[in-house]
């Protein structure tokens, strides 16, 4: 067995001590020490589908972008149309570089006419801050067709996770699953706000106070749960909110859930993970990932537009979602395993996979139209060590190469909600 090295330079989430007390198994992720599970991945996954799960997302980046030029700036740096975003609503979007490569997938929230909040992946936060700073300062080339062109818009940009943001600071806790609304409602006193919460539709949010603290509650999430929310509070209040939620949520079956379950849940739902189903070794674009609705070329110029549109015209690939057997005794599918059509040809590769109950759900990067929905599909296990290679198993499988599938399953709908 290969020993794991613990990273001692990793930062601790504001909830680190609480995780340790709850028995969380801690690992380094995105530069932070985070719980990968508390009880087990399977148990926590089931809990989110049947009751509710609480996730520490305080390591995710939260940026405040404000001022009269905030809207224009966000319009420039991301693919979706911020101009259409009403106050109290959020939108999914992508930040690209000048070559059209995805730097991150983000959610933009409009708090006020000139006040926006942008949530980014923990692992990309420093990179995104650097990119926005370079664009903001006017140093960065923003259009390879017009290399002299520079950004002139100067909104105020702050990192809301920093303690220096004071009471307006924000970190993210996610509560996901059918019981989440009931749990949150227990903490809300005003009838009007309870009603507002009940009416809250997807990608909308409300701002309220709980026990005197400001909380932003959005109907968003990464687990595919129809009922699921993210709650944003000042960093100093995250511990208080985490504990309050677990306290009142116990009778609804609320459990703390780690990164392992977060990953199996988002795979089950079909959501991309940056580095796997977005960007990464295949340079997956937003179009290939299935998000053409979050790219608005008709809005005008934005950074990376021309390159992305060109890449889209030339692309022959897409992300797909497959279901395969996963009972114990079946070898787990991994990234890089080959997707095989009924003619025995490699049509793509696995990018992510999770075991969920008796099945494995795999997200794959594959040729468009190679496998129809509900059609049969195979997976060939790539060689995982020298022994496999000595036995004749291939380590890298080329598109079109003929291989014998090791396991068979079905192609599914691209996305699923629960």
């Amino acid at each position: 067995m290969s020993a794991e090295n613990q990273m001692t330079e990793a930062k601790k989430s504001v909830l680190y001590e609480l995780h340790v007390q709850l028995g969380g198994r801690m690992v380094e992720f995105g530069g932070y020490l985070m719980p990968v599970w508390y009880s087990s991945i399977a148990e926590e996954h089931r809990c989110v589908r049947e009751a509710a799960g609480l996730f520490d997302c305080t390591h995710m980046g939260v940026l405040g972008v404000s001022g009269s030029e905030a809207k224009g700036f966000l319009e420039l740096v991301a693919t979706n149309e911020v101009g259409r975003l009403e106050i109290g609503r959020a939108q999914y979007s992508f930040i690209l570089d000048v070559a059209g490569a995805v730097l991150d997938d983000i959610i933009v929230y409009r708090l006020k006419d000139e006040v926006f909040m942008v949530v980014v992946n923990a692992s990309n936060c420093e990179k995104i801050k650097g990119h926005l700073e370079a664009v903001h300062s006017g140093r960065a080339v923003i259009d390879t067709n017009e290399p002299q062109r520079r950004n002139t818009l100067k909104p105020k940009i702050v990192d809301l996770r920093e303690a220096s943001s004071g009471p307006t600071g924000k970190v993210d806790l996610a509560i996901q699953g059918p019981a989440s609304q009931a749990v949150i409602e227990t903490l809300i006193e005003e009838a009007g706000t309870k009603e507002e919460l009940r009416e809250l539709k997807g990608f909308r949010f409300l701002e309220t106070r709980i026990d005197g603290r400001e909380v932003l509650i959005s109907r968003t999430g990464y687990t595919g749960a129809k009922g699921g929310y993210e709650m944003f509070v000042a960093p100093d209040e995250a511990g208080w909110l985490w504990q309050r939620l677990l306290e009142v949520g116990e009778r609804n079956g609320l459990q703390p859930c780690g990164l392992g379950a977060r990953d199996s849940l988002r795979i089950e739902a079909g959501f991309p993970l940056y580095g796997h189903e977005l960007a990464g070794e295949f340079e997956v674009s937003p179009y290939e990932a299935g998000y053409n609705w979050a790219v608005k070329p008709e809005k005008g110029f934005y950074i990376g537009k021309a390159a992305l549109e060109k890449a889209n015209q030339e692309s022959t690939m897409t992300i797909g979602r497959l279901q395969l057997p996963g009972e114990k005794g079946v070898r787990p599918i991994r990234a890089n395993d080959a997707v095989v059509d009924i003619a025995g040809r490699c049509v793509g590769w696995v990018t992510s996979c999770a075991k969920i109950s008796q099945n494995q759900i795999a997200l794959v990067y594959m040729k468009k139209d190679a496998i129809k929905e509900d059609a049969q599909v195979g997976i060939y296990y790539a060689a995982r060590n020298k022994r496999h290679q000595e036995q004749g198993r291939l380590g890298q499988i080329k598109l079109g190469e003929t291989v014998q599938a090791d396991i068979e399953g079905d192609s599914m709908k691209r996305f699923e909600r629960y």
Partner: protein
Amino acid sequence: MVPEDLFYSKEHEWARIEGNEAVVGITDYAQEQLGEVTFVELPELDLEIGQGEVLGAVESSKAASDLYAPVSGRVFEVNGGLESQPEWVNDDCYGLGWICKIKFAEESGTDGLMTAAQYEQYLKEL
């Protein structure tokens, strides 16, 4: 505390020595790191293997870990039950979760392996 009567490798395998035979498995530390084991790749029968070479693998949904031979010799028995009950590796790693049995080569022995006390110390330093 790890079982006193076993020997241990740096890669977290254990070996129970019975005459010139070794029963082999992975330690509690290893099974905990892996999480829920869903698949065990057992070595082939009669496989001749050197100490430190890859015997097989233990896989969970989160990780695949190669299994290294703690001693040199020939694999003469494997725990076929793990094909349908891979969770034995999690639930009883020193007992029901044994993986294979190796008959020692003449020259080899427990050289290069740690005692229980040495392995405990090794774990503390990880």
